[in-house]
């Protein structure tokens, strides 16, 4: 039943529940719904930060000093940025393979791919920290320029979300190791994969924003 037909139900005219299925038979589980609802929150957070980025970048900020133009100086795009992006993409691919394995019941490969995805996710975060240190060594400090400040802010927000994902991934690996709740482990692998894909897309859009400006 579509949301529109649900919202146009004349509930005062239709007492009874004949033909209504048991909710447990058709509703997705709550954790899955919770993760999707959180994607809405994350989308808003990153959209607002990106909007602030574009507004701040487009300002004629040196007008007060009698100079045309902006104080915005774009950050460089070192090789490490692309390597990290690649690692995150491969990490996401590993989670996708884990998800396919979960669906086909290949428990061994599901566990291997989940661990691989998690390790690559961790490698991405370490790579991002190295990237931060590289930028600082080259003088791209946070307070030096608004472009730098936005880079650190956006990458930190993204990194914190992935760190949260790694925690969930670690718990899923723990579930698989104890082997007691196989269905829950499979569900968690599926959610880890979806979560990773979502934040891969977020990162790709952030990189596109950084490169385009």
């Amino acid at each position: 039943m579509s949301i529109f037909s649900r919202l146009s139900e004349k509930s005062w005219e239709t007492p009874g529940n004949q033909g209504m299925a048991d909710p447990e038979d058709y509703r997705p589980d709550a954790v899955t719904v919770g993760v999707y609802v959180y994607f809405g929150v994350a989308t808003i957070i990153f959209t607002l930060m990106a909007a602030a980025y574009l507004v701040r970048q487009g300002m004629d900020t040196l007008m007060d000093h009698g100079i045309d133009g902006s104080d915005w100086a774009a950050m460089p795009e070192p090789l490490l940025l692309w390597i990290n992006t690649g690692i995150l993409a491969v990490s996401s691919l590993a989670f996708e393979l884990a998800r396919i394995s979960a669906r086909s019941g290949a428990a061994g490969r599901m566990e291997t791919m989940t661990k691989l995805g998690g390790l690559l996710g961790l490698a991405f975060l370490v790579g991002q920290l190295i990237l931060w240190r590289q930028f600082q060594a080259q003088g791209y400090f946070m307070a030096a320029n608004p472009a730098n400040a936005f880079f650190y802010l956006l990458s930190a927000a993204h990194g914190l979300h992935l760190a949260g994902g790694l925690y969930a991934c670690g718990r899923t690996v723990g579930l698989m190791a104890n082997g007691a709740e196989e269905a829950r482990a499979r569900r968690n692998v599926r959610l880890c994969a979806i979560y990773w894909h979502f934040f891969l897309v977020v990162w790709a859009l952030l990189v596109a924003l950084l490169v385009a400006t």
Partner: protein
Amino acid sequence: MATTLADDLRPLHHPKTWIGKYVWSQDHKVIAVQYGVTAVGIGLVALVLSVLMRLQLGFPGSVPWIQPENYLQLVSMHGMIMVVYLLTALLLGGFGNYLIPLMVGARDMVFPYVNMLSYWVYLLSVIVLVAGFFVPGGATGAGWTLYPPQAITEGTPGYSWGIVSMLVSLAIFIIAFTMGGLNYVTTVLQARCKGMTLMRMPLSVWGIFTASIMGLLAFPALFVAAIMMLLDHLAGTSFFMPTLFSFGQTTDTVGGNPILFQHLFWFFGHPEVYIVALPAFGIVSDLISVHARRNIFGYRMMVWAIVIIGGLSFLVWAHHMYVSGMNPYFGFFFAISTLVIAIPTAIKVYNWLLTLWRGDIHLRVPMLFAIAFIFTFIHGGLTGLFLGNVSVDVPLSDTYFVVGHFHMVMGVSPVLVIFGAIYHWYPKMTGRMWNKTLGQMHFWFTFLGTYAIYMPMHYIGILGVPRRYFALGETAFIPDSVAIANAGITIAAIVVFLAQGLFFINMIWSLFRGPKADPNPWGAASLEWQTPDTPPVHGNWGPKLPTVYRWAYDYSVPRPERDFIPQNEPPA
């Protein structure tokens, strides 16, 4: 977790110790009370701050230690505490937690552990906020809107540490709210019992559900703004901070955009009005229906109006910024969207009135508060139409007219609903009845008192009396009668403040000495009144979950034994 929809009670983690039951509790009802007590506690602090402000305004110099900078701190802390830490926390964390699982027929929230965590993180945010009073320089005095650059610039009270405490506290609060909000939304979507279709949910649940979605989408704007301002303040970035000439020196900041903060703030700030209002709309609909023994008029329209108001509220934020230098076309757009939102709001008001029309109205204490809400909300809504128009808003901006308006529409109105709701659900929560006389006295002092406070503010606002001023001094356009009005407002505020004692005395006395409550003393049809135990125990429904067969508003049915049909009663 499927436990909220299962007949199996074992996965509910029944606590075995007192601490597990009442402190580290995962039971939504205990968490609701924890949220409620904390929110009311910090709300009382804000109430005391407002009385101190009124003493200064009504009787200047009567409290010698209130200096101009202290006055600004009182204003700022009062505003933020009332809007965020009291109203949002109480309506969503308190009533949301208590009512959602009971009204949709679930055993608990879908993520009970996250729910518990949500409360403790909220409490941490309150502690960090209160710490702001004690840091060097005291609490922030930047106004509740915390506009940069002044909020973090030398000369503003609390510009060094007070603002840090406020921003960190807000960030923590938003994390807490996100945990709670995810729970409320997912529970409504996933844990409704068999037969509880979306359009059979009581309007209280619809209001809280929609407000929770709005909170999840609006609070991130405040979160982003708070983090960016913290970085401007502590890390020397220039997100919002332009170049300033302060105390004869140029600041290190270059090119930041203070208006960007205003956009982020109000992208949160205006939906926040409805995050507070929508649960109140829902709850008041249920109170009116139950105590007028009428099915709610236009239920489907009421649901749609809640959803439409929620959506439109994201398109009106810049009507708070007409005087910040806006392109006239933007001003035109935001004025139109502001006026459009009045349509679904008016539908709701008419439907409340039509529910009352020819109803079997029982003027019990909850109903008195519900009817009073209609008065104050219409009053505050109509003055909102004035301020939604650019040309009227510009001269009235930053005057007491605005103070009168927003206190009526989002201060007094939701608070009246909160009182009505507490009086209404207290028998279910505690198993005891209130003292009616004390409740009625509390109502009349509060209702008439708030009019005595806020009506004169509209008049002195039209005279041009500015808000946020410590003292008016000798100002040519302000007549002497304003001082008399201010003294009168202050006396009314003190009376209303003291009258709240009746509420607390009644609540505590009734908890121990009140008459035992019937499981369904008002004859309500919705599910929370049909629990096997009063007050409901952990798990809510005993061994078997309820099944719902109808909507929540079957009242005044021609039956000899009772005039309503509970939601879980099968058709004959």
